[in-house]
């Protein structure tokens, strides 16, 4: 049977994992059980900062039924490996945040395990806590970036505009809470569960358990959403499950309910940002100064790299000859903050994009034209001095979004509507222009040293072997398409191996919008190598039958033929970690977002009427899945702007329930118009760049700009709530 090399990349093929998800057959960690299973719970601190003296166990409780792990029981090192390992798996000597884990308890009956928590108390001596990053004296990381001479440029500026912006915590609220199941199999300690980075977890297990690598195994279970929340935290929950299973020599399941997940796991870093911008008379940028302060929570975790991305994005997708950025990540006695889609860029871009509204007011120039004048274009040099040679879609997305939304017409219409005293509402339309670097910042990808492989089994099965995890974003499908296209075979000939550290190489974490571009690039490379090997067998790829025949010969001793590709940076790529200058990312994606909204004059209730966005991310491997990413990320951005209010007091979240922390429901999602602009990059497979996080950056500043249009006021803190708006509306 002859098969044509059907164009696979660029086609909206159905998800490869759809069947099991649609039928309820997909197995998430809480669906799994094993004989002799123990249920685990975590004893957590209720105080924010204290000297830990010990635990007091109620002698009347049948503790012999339980397995207990405290800090002193950790066989390896009591430090969770992130960039540093200052965070202990279990508190020892000090408690540094509310909800800090102090001990682990497992029991065959889940209810009994929760009951046990009521029979042990933490003996500690309170210490003074710090809850506001601005009061903190402990800095996890500081980054300075300087280009040109800002002082001189400000003195030459026709306009100088300053502004302060404030961003809150944001909770991931993935529908599947965090969970891990640890069990022994063939003398290896295996842990399966909900995660984004199997090799990060493997490293954490090695630290905690001190078993050799071949005795540890991490396997991804179906994962119900991550958004970065399962990038870092799983190191802890998988470590905890493993510690209990190691001690008990029995399988242990540790799954958080929603209350615990919201109280104890990571959130987006709150940020305080101060901007100072100098422009010439025509509105061209002469100087951009930014000061960023991120609240890291109690331990360093990923704060240094969140800060890094925030610093690089702090000046927006613009060309400016003089730049000075200073960023700090500070410690507070709150649960550590972590990765969340965008990773510092949503915070930085909210400030720089909303700042244009202040600039427009001061200069009298049009906010859209200011973008057009200053946007990066091919040949531009970025904040870090990186020359963008090609694939710079900033102006293309700007024009596409303006056209699709009929921005000028809508704006005039809304202005007329607002001028009518009889109107019961105020309407506003706002725009943002944003970017997002794909892959790890600077030398990060080189340091990751990722690998991916393609294998051919004796029975003719072609497998993609990568550590990248399907978490809903469609990576499994995208990698299938890339492999199929590279080989020139039908899509359904390819199978993607489930991420299992005993079977797949370390492709790096599933984060930073790197999976399609970096790992996809490696998969394509490996597939091309397989194709080359099969060149000795003319017609091998023409049919499954001939492929099987070739495989039988190629697979010596019946074992699979495995071709592995290893990451190499683009040619000429340079990065200086000290000066923060050079090639920060192999490629940037660009997006223009336009939000139309309506505010009720009597109640200040705000309803988003429409969101229009044009995205340029090289090329869509799968347009349907890409639109799904854009719609989902855009709605999370709208939630960040208007609905999601994490209320903290004394370091603890007060509204940690889905009833009280409001993520958008179906009625909150506006109609969305999505335009995909193609601009292939040489640095990604078939021209593709990363997409996962780009949709998150644009909506919030566009919302704030729309609120400015509607009310005449710039609200510089998120979320923008009716409570904030109503005092500024005149009596209806």
């Amino acid at each position, binding site marked *: 049977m002859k098969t044509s090399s059907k164009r696979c990349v660029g086609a909206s093929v159905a998800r490869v994992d759809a069947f099991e998800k649609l039928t309820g057959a997909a197995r998430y960690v809480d669906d799994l059980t094993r004989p002799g299973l123990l249920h685990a719970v975590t004893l957590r601190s209720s105080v924010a900062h204290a000297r830990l003296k010990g635990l007091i166990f109620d002698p009347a409780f049948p503790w012999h039924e339980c397995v207990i792990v405290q800090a002193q029981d950790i066989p390896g090192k009591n430090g969770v490996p992130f960039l540093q390992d200052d965070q202990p798996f279990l508190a020892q000597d000090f408690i540094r945040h509310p909800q800090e884990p102090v001990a682990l308890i497992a029991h065959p009956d*889940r*209810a*009994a395990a*929760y*009951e046990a928590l009521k029979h042990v108390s933490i003996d500690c001596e309170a210490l003074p806590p710090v809850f506001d990053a601005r009061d903190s004296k402990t800095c996890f990381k500081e980054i300075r970036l300087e280009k040109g001479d800002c002082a001189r440029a400000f003195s030459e500026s026709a306009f100088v505009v300053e502004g302060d912006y404030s961003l809150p915590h944001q909770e991931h609220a993935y529908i599947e809470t965090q969970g891990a199941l640890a069990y022994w199999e063939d003398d290896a300690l295996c842990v399966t569960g909900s995660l984004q980075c199997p090799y990060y977890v493997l490293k954490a297990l090695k630290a905690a358990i001190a078993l050799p690598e071949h005795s540890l195994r991490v396997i991804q279970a179906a994962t119900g959403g991550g958004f970065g929340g399962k990038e870092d935290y799983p190191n802890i929950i998988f470590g905890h499950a493993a510690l209990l299973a190691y001690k008990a020599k029995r399988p242990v399941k540790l799954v958080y*309910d929603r*209350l615990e997940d919201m109280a104890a796991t990571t959130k987006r870093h709150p940020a305080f940002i101060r901007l100072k911008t100098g422009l010439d008379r025509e509105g061209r940028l002469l100087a951009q100064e930014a000061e960023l302060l991120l609240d890291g929570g109690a331990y360093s975790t990923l704060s240094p790299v969140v800060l890094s991305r925030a610093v690089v994005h702090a000046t927006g997708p613009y060309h400016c000859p003089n730049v000075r950025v200073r960023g700090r990540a500070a410690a507070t006695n709150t649960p550590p903050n972590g990765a969340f889609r965008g990773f510092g860029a949503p915070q930085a871009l909210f400030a720089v994009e909303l700042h244009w509204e202040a600039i427009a007011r001061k200069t009298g120039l049009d906010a859209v034209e200011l973008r057009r004048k200053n946007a990066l274009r091919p040949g531009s040099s970025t904040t870090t001095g990186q020359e963008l040679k090609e694939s710079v879609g900033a102006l293309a997305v700007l024009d596409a979004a303006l056209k699709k939304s009929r921005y000028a017409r809508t704006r005039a219409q809304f202005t007329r509507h607002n001028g009518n005293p009889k109107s019961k509402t105020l309407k506003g339309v706002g725009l943002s222009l944003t970017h997002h670097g794909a892959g790890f910042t600077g030398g990060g990808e080189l340091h990751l040293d990722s690998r991916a492989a393609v294998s051919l089994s004796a029975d003719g099965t072609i497998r993609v072997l990568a550590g990248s995890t399907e978490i809903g974003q469609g990576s499994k499908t995208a990698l299938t398409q890339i492999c199929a296209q590279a080989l020139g075979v039908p899509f359904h000939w390819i199978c993607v191996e489930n991420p299992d550290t005993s079977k797949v190489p370390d492709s790096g974490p599933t984060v930073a919008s790197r999976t399609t571009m970096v790992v996809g690039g490696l998969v394509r490379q490996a597939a091309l190598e397989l194709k080359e090997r099969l060149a000795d067998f003319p017609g091998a790829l023409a049919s499954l039958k001939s492929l099987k025949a070739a495989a039988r010969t190629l697979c010596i001793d019946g074992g699979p033929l495995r071709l592995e590709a290893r990451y190499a940076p683009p040619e000429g790529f340079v990065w200086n970690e000290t000066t923060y200058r050079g090639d920060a990312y192999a490629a940037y994606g660009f997006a223009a977002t336009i939000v139309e909204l309506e505010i009720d*004059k*009597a*109640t*200040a*209730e705000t*309803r988003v009427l429409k969101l229009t966005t044009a995205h340029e991310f090289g090329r869509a491997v799968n347009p349907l899945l890409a639109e799904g990413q854009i719609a989902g990320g855009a709605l999370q951005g709208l939630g960040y702007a208007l*609905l999601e*209010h994490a*209320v903290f007091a004394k370091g603890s979240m*007060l*509204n940690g329930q889905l*009833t*009280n922390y*409001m993520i*958008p*429901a*179906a*009625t*909150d999602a506006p109609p969305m118009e999505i335009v995909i602009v193609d601009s292939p990059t040489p640095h990604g497979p078939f021209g593709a760049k990363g997409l996962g996080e780009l949709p998150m950056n644009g909506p919030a500043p566009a919302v704030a700009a729309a609120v400015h249009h509607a009310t005449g006021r710039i609200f510089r803190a998120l979320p923008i709530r*009716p*409570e904030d708006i*109503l*005092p500024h509306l005149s*009596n*209806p």
Partner: protein
Amino acid sequence: MRGDPKSIRWLRARTPEQALALYAQNPGALPLAGGSDLMVAFNAGHLNRKTVLDLSGVERWRKISAGRTLAIGSLATFTEIQNHPQVAKRAPLLALALSEVGGPAVQNRATLGGNIANASPAGDSFPPLAVYEARVHLMSVDSQRAIPVLEAFAGVKKNSLKPGELIGCVELPALPSKPSRSLFRKLGTRSAQAVSKLAVAGLLWLGKDRRVVELRFAVNAMAPTARRLKSAEMFLRGKTLDAPAIERACELVSQDVSPIDDFRSSAAYRLSACRNLLRAFLS
């Protein structure tokens, strides 16, 4: 999920008499209707070792009957209530309020009995029930009484039911005449599926020359319990509905409420929004 089902003592009633007898014999039991409040507490681990009295099988308390008055059984679900043609006709504000509570899955289980007994300050059915001047029928093994709905609430999540009392039905008397205007409006963080920051219900009867015959206006989430804006109501009775009178009525809102700042909203917002909604209703 922290609840221990093995620790719960489960009692089940099929008739009102059975329910009242079991409740009298087990005074510490927690009456369970649709579960939308109680089961959340169970899931959080707060109900272990308690006794639960399941009322969901008491069919007689599910009935909705329309005669001179509209009697809604305490166990009728929100879906059943809002779909009943007589409710839609005679108590449209109640139907509207119930349609905005949670989503269909919650409405298929939530009951007025459960809501009233739970006495949340933010109960959305309470402002409509208050302006319809509903009466709650309370029964125990040896007594029966009917009280105005607002008297069923003693404080935040505290009802004023006496020991052994269960709610049989909620009775809405006929309105004196067709109101000139009516309003139900709920403000929540989300456009749907949200606990109220504030919900209001209003009925207005106007006579000749815009003279106010009667105003009934009720609010939730502005005090420990739902309230009628009595001062504004009394002030406007008999007055002409002109701008100064409307303004004065809006000022008087603060006499009958004591809003607070909480993680859902602020006192200042609630008061301003409430005034604006009342003003818009009267204008």
